[in-house]
């Protein structure tokens, strides 16, 4: 294909997500205080390399700090890189979750996303004691509903709802604030949100579509889908399936990015960072993927080598940005800023 498609690059920050790091306790009490400093250093490294965004994995079942908290702590110490914590939707309150993600967008000035995840285990259910975990298919269905109500709540304040009209004494135009009246299978939300519409309109929704159970939710709701594949053909097929699914849900497939997520140990990787650059360039150029999500086996080592070597080679070939052009994560991903779904209806609160 002659058309130059933009290459997107992202990386995972959570310690212990790579295979060789599993034995090390990332949060021994003495080092927990340095979690912030460590993450800030990694985020700055990734930002200097011009990466689109950083993910930070999370689970109620594994040692680690709350991922959204970690990335909020990082936000004021970075300027451009996107920040995408994992947020689970199973035992949490959709109203709180959307407010926290919108707030990450406010404190990062338009760089927030969230990677939706579910909590399938009985162990996680027992941490909350409210209900047993539903079967996986139902969990992803519910996650989709949480994504949907979140977009409604982000839209529930139109962009120009705040008017500060001294003459009439009105701070907001209440016609631009909307009850969302969402009724899902397991929850309902009245709305509107308490948080005004975030800078990106909608923070970026990321779904790991590796598991088949998550795929329809990704096609329906994700701005970025992460996949895993062992060949370019497999990646291309998965990407086509996701884009087709998006179309079937009435979406513009041009607004969905599909990134190959891969755990990489750049010490052990055959050919090292150069070979990885070849692979990314090849799969991207062939249309199998829109970009690459690095899950470093050892973040300090692999992210550094990825940034200094792999990214440099991709830049040398003119495939990756040399500087950020826009300010928001949507800008980096080439995604449009959505208009509030209530803005054109004229519906009143």
């Amino acid at each position, binding site marked *: 294909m002659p058309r130059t498609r933009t290459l997107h690059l992202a990386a995972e920050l959570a310690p212990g997500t790579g295979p060789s790091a599993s034995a090390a306790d990332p*949060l*021994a*009490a*003495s080092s*927990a*205080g340095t*979690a*912030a400093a460590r993450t*800030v250093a990694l985020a700055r490294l990734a930002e200097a390399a011009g990466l689109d965004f950083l993910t930070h994995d999370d689970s*109620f*079942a*594994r*040692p680690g*700090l*709350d991922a959204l*908290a*970690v990335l*909020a*702590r990082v*936000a*004021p*110490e970075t300027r451009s890189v996107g920040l995408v914590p994992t947020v689970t939707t199973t*035992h*949490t*309150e959709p*109203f*709180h979750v959307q*407010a*926290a993600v*919108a*707030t990450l967008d*406010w*404190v*990062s*000035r338009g760089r927030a996303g969230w990677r939706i995840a579910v909590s399938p285990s009985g*162990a996680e259910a*027992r*941490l*909350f*004691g*409210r209900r047993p975990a539903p079967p996986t298919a139902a969990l992803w269905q519910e996650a989709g509903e949480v994504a949907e109500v979140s977009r409604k709540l982000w839209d529930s*304040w139109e962009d120009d*709802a*705040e008017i*500060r009209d*001294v003459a*009439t*004494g*009105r*701070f*907001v135009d*209440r016609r631009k*604030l909307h009850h969302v009246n969402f009724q899902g299978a*397991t929850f309902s*939300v*009245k709305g*509107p949100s*308490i*948080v005004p519409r975030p800078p990106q309109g909608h923070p970026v929704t990321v779904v790991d579509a590796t598991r088949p159970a998550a795929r329809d939710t990704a096609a329906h709701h994700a701005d970025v889908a992460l996949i895993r594949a062992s060949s370019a053909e497999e990646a291309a097929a998965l990407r086509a399936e996701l884009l087709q699914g998006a179309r079937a849900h009435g979406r513009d497939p041009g607004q969905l990015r599909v990134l190959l997520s891969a755990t990489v140990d750049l010490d052990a990787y055959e050919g090292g960072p150069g070979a990885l650059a070849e692979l990314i360039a090849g799969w991207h150029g062939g249309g199998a993927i829109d970009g690459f999500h690095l899950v470093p086996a050892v973040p300090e080592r692999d992210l550094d080598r990825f940034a200094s070597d792999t990214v440099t080679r991709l830049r040398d070939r003119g495939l990756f940005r040399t500087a950020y052009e826009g300010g928001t994560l949507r800008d980096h991903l080439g995604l449009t800023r959505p208009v509030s779904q209530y803005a054109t209806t004229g519906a009143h*609160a």
Partner: protein
Amino acid sequence: MSTGTGPKQVHLAAHFPGVNSTTVWADPRSGSQIDFSSFEHLARTAERGLFDFFFLAEGLRLREHNGRIHDLDVVGRPESITVLNALAAVTDRLGLAGTVNATFNEPYELARRLASLDHLSGGRAAWNVVTSSDAFTGENFRRGGYLDRADRYTRAAEFLATARELWDSWTPEGRQRPFAHHGPQFGIEGEFTVPRSPQGHPVVIQAGDSAEGREFAASAADVIFTRHSTLEAGREFYADVKGRLARYGREPGDLKIMPGVTYVLGDTDAEAQELAAEIRRQQVSPQNAILALEQVWGRDLSGYDPDGPLPDIDPDPESTLVQGRVRIADPVAVARKWRALSEAKGLSIRQTVIETSGRQSFVGSPGTVAAALAEFVATDAADGFILVPHLTPGGLDGFVDRVVPLLQERGVFRTEYSGTTLRSHLGLPEPVWKG
């Protein structure tokens, strides 16, 4: 705690003046209540002033009036804990306190978020436990608004106790151990994912004035946030709450009493008084005066002239006109009082509301205000104050520049932080690890 030699020290905290009717948003100096730069400015100012902590309130549903969203006061705010984590990046010592409702959250998740904040801030986290519950707010949550008034503090107390079990489930040496809590409100078990945080337990604040609220604070809180802002009411409250501590094996210094107070500064007392009157007129706009009246009367009074007399009809005590605000307990009595005042002084609706809803506690020159604050603390009407400026975000600047130095001169306020954690600023003991 003071060492016992010098004068009793004043504790200060800064309330971000967001959503409430005391904010003067119409002032041209009023900035955004949502941009991070506003939070950063107020927090940095508070830290420059060596304050103990920065404080965020919470509301989980936009207020409604007569079935419509209330549009006269500042509305819209970010989610507290996320903002506090970001503020941890731009401050070093300042405590970071967030209000989070115990009814519409679950212990495991919230304990984890608070412990994360304590780690990411190096020991500066605080949680203001509020309990407000009504079906109106509950409509935004899976749980719904089912909780009885009587059960609110039962749940809050067990919530906090459960959170403390989670915070204690890692040994101080960093070993993770399983926890199990099986009580009337919560039945949960497993492993907590966050190691013991720098403060052991984040500082716990309680806000609420009822007997149940005071008892809860006496049994379990580190700070109590009150509304008592006169010397007499403050001393009475102080004696009552401190008197409840012994029952729980606690010392008077283990619970700090900090009323939320507003203030107005001028070069002279007269100038400050004038400015205060002007601010009250800005806060109680003609539209806001009618709204305040409707809150008492529980009726649509939009046809009344704010510059005219009070209505002669009676309040509707069963009204659901106002939602999302604390209800007035006896509207008929309040209306009677307002009418008497209005008749005695010849006041219009707006003037009556200005007179009766005044919240400016400290008005005067910096010297007058510093002396008054010091007197409150010296005479046991308070241990300190949560200052509520009326301007966002610059409303604290004058206080830090002009009043703090005078408190320092009097020897009642620190000249530098002596510790790094919020507990150390407040002089609170380390929580004993209950393994």
